[in-house]
């Protein structure tokens, strides 16, 4: 009887701990939405646009989590590859969907090379993948800036005067992506009661979700799960652990490149030197808000996370304005929440893991609390 009570309490505690972050966000949203005074249709429209804009980037994080490599902060490498593709197609003036696909095609080998490099490095930093990939992002950012600031125009020819800095080399700070703006979102124009639905992008996201479901069942997907659960056991079972981990990072990096291209076609402008920097942080924060952890993430986590995270993005400045009289305070709150939530999720994950271990130890000892 005592054991049953303890199990029930443990399950409740575990549920609350597992879903604490989404529950906090749902609570905050319920308070902030009425204060912001936004209409329901406006919020639905904003959420649909933001879901189309961000879901692919967030989905690209799932595969390394399956392989036990945690949250891939190195996805910014893929984002940079995507941006190089976008710079080139803007210079060549390739318009519409062909331009977007060509940018993805150009980004693929760059992202594969960067992903392979990242995977090899992470194999040498087992157990510290997240911090290593985070720092690796800064390192590659330096290389990216070097290429974009000095390579473009000097080594890589750029003809468009709209792109090149007045000194003759280097790419301008902001690039207008008018040629490909919303080309995927508006591919199949659908409008429901005045709410525009970016069906083209949702179809691509849907195909990606099916890919992830299928991928988990393949031999490689099963290998990744085995590696994610226990590397030593996986190695003993004949799975090439290091290679599997590298493949997971390569796939994630390539998908992040595509995600960044989809993200920027929705936005319509590219901040050459900064757009990629926030990509990883916001995608990871959104995934964690959806209830994912370092070791476990599902498709519902992605969609719930993007909706809740961006709901806060939209409503908090306005709620701040009506509540305190300053929109800026709401904006500070939003940034604080974005970064804070990553820290809270990581702490909760470690806490939960310690509790689970303690519970397992107690159970082995014979049920004494």
């Amino acid at each position, binding site marked *: 009887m005592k054991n049953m009570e303890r199990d029930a309490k443990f399950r409740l505690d575990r549920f609350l701990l597992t879903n604490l972050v989404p529950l906090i966000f749902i609570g905050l949203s319920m308070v902030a939405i009425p204060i912001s005074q936004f209409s329901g249709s406006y919020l639905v429209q904003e959420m649909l646009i933001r879901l189309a804009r961000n879901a692919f980037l967030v989905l690209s994080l799932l595969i390394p989590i399956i392989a036990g490599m945690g949250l891939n902060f190195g996805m910014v490498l893929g984002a940079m590859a995507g941006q190089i593709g976008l710079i080139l*197609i803007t210079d*060549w*003036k*390739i*318009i*519409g*969907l*062909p*331009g977007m*696909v*060509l940018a993805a*095609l*150009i980004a693929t080998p760059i992202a594969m090379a960067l992903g392979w490099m990242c995977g090899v490095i992470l194999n040498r930093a087992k157990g510290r993948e997240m911090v290593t990939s985070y720092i690796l992002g800064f390192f590659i950012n330096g290389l990216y800036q070097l290429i974009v600031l000095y390579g473009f125009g000097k080594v890589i020819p750029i003809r468009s005067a709209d792109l090149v800095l007045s000194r003759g080399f280097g790419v301008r700070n902001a690039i207008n992506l008018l*040629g490909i703006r919303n080309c995927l979102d508006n591919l199949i124009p659908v409008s429901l009661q005045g709410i525009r639905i970016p069906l083209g992008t949702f179809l691509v996201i849907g195909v990606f979700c099916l890919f992830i479901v299928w991928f988990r069942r393949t031999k490689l997907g099963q290998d990744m799960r085995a590696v994610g659960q226990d590397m030593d056991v996986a190695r003993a079972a004949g799975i090439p652990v290091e290679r599997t981990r590298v493949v997971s990072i390569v796939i994630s990096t390539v998908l992040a490149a595509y995600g960044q291209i989809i993200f920027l076609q929705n936005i319509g402008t590219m901040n050459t030197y900064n757009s990629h920097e926030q990509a990883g942080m916001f995608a990871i924060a959104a995934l964690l808000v959806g209830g994912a952890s370092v070791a476990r993430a599902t498709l519902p986590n992605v969609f719930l996370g993007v909706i809740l995270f961006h709901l806060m993005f939209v409503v908090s400045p306005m709620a701040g304005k009506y509540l305190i009289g300053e929109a800026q305070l709401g904006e500070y709150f939003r940034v604080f929440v974005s970064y804070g939530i990553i820290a809270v999720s990581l702490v909760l994950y470690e806490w939960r893991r310690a509790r689970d271990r303690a519970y397992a130890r107690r159970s082995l000892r014979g049920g004494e609390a």
Partner: protein
Amino acid sequence: MKRRTIIQASLVLLLVLFGAGLYRIGKGFDLLVDNKTITIEDRTYRATSTVRVSVDGGEPIELMKRDRDVISVVGYSHVIRVEELDMDDEVVRSVEKTFRLDRNSGDLLSIPALLGGEEAWIVIRNP
């Protein structure tokens, strides 16, 4: 091993060809449609009236005498339709012509030259 290499090389080649195809399909051009008097190889074509110009059946633009505008087109082959208008905006004459663009072709479409029957009515803009 050899077969695998051949398959991989073929795939890369296929992707390169796919990329080249995308380049051709999606290549965009900004063209200046110009209704100004122009001299081409000692022959002068005078802008005399207002014209309505549309390319590939797109939104038509109206150009008065000494007027110019920019249009964006996608792809290499296009059809231009020029309608000369009188004072009451009635169409006096209509000309339709197919033209091709490439890397070296100009980006200025001279309407007086086109209406005057000039072969080289697409000219390279003076910097």
